């Protein structure tokens, strides 16, 4: 059975030699799409890394449904079901060719080379990257790298997605493609972003992270009051909401 709820309970954590980030944090991902905002250094990325087990909290637990994630096998189980898109796609694409990188996850999960390849080709086609199979990863453009990185995550058929600033450094066309793709995905997810328009188009709920605490607000609230963002005077898209 696929897990349906991912929870952080009473998390206490701080990076070594720095003030504590979280003193008693609770967080849950169920069915919806959550946007996560907050200042630089407020701990947004750390929060996602705690979920993935890249850092371990001093106190508190990570839970997938009723299973407390503790042992190595638990973490493998969690990572099998939760996909994490890194900020920098270059960190995520380490194989020489695109298809090898996309097939890397399925191969590790025990699929045969033929099945892994087929899965990879299918996901690439779905993301509009058909024909990219034998391209070299380090020769791709920034936007293409981001899309391929997303493909490497989606091919593992995750039950939850964690996206760390996915629209960073993307041109408007690639950004729009990403919005369409993410809006079509039927997977609960958390998106860290400073890109308000992107969040309003893709998420239904916003948490802001301040001083180690999460504050909840609906996405619509973001646009019921005047807001400012870079290049706000340029024509831009506010998604389904018509706020001008």
């Amino acid at each position: 059975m696929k897990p349906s709820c991912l929870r952080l309970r009473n998390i206490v954590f701080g990076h070594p030699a720095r003030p504590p980030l979280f003193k008693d944090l609770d967080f849950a991902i169920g069915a919806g799409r959550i946007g996560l905002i907050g200042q630089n250094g407020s701990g947004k990325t750390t929060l996602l890394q705690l979920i993935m087990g890249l850092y371990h909290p001093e106190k508190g637990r990570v839970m997938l449904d009723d299973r407390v994630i503790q042992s190595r096998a638990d973490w493998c189980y969690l990572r099998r079901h939760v996909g994490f898109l890194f900020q920098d796609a270059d960190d995520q694409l380490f194989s020489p060719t695109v298809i090898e990188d996309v097939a890397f996850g399925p191969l590790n999960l025990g699929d045969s080379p033929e099945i892994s390849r087929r899965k990879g080709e299918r996901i690439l086609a779905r993301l509009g990257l058909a024909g990219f199979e034998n391209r070299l990863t380090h020769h791709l453009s920034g936007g293409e790298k981001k899309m391929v990185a997303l493909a490497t995550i989606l091919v593992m058929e995750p039950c939850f997605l964690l996206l760390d600033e996915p629209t960073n450094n993307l041109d408007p066309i690639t950004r729009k493609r990403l919005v369409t793709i993410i809006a079509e995905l039927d997977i609960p997810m958390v998106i860290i972003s400073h890109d308000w328009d992107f969040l309003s188009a893709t998420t239904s709920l916003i948490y802001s992270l301040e001083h180690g605490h999460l504050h909840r607000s609906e996405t619509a609230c973001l646009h019921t009051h005047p807001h400012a963002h870079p290049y706000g005077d340029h024509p831009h898209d506010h998604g389904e909401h018509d706020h001008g």
Partner: protein
Amino acid sequence: MNFEQWAEGSSILHGASPHIKLIGALCFCFAVASCQHMQPVLAGLVLACVGLLLAQIPLGSLYKRLFLVNIFTLVCWLTLPVTVPGTAITHLGFLSISREGIDMALLITVKTNTLVLMFITLIATSSVADLGHGLQRLKVPPKLCLLLLFSYRYIFVIHAEYKRLKRAALFRSFKPTTSSHTYRTYGNLLGMTLVKGWQRARRVQQAMLLRGFSGEFISLHSRDVRPADWLILAGALCSTFIVLVLEYSGGAL
């Protein structure tokens, strides 16, 4: 940086499996390197040139590589004739030039060029990625294969990082001179590149871990042996055989 200028092509050599070519290159390389006579090495040189023609490598593109290699053989030419004892043919001041020394330098030069040309024919006609998988198929320890594949993947990224840092310095009016400020700046640039490389290595390792990596790379490539492989293997082994026969008949055939 261009490591793969000959890796693309439609010749029979481009079509063969990298592990077969690696075996062929290894055999040929040991045979030529062990030669003591000129005749078998010259035969090897001719065979390597035939290989180059078969691989359809434009000969004009070879000069640069051969030039670099022959910088090393130049050192042999400067040292061997005056250091190897034997019949002196002429004297330069207190130094005597020996025939044996010249013969040895010549043999080393021809050997070196033969091996470089054969390696270009057999190895440079595969991409680095394919060679990595070829080595894996030959049961080379996985750590060494990973080292090759990762060096190749990230050398561009690290180089780009270094260039970015250097540009940042240049944009703040940094002019390299012979001064301690320049040395310190370059030291910092290199140090910072190292730190960034290390950080990136950590993030890459995390990314691999999150996708279920457990230490062994599973290859996506098919394990079929192609028809071209048998031809290439036969060609390389025949070449090796010719060189060895000429060598052990004392170079007197």
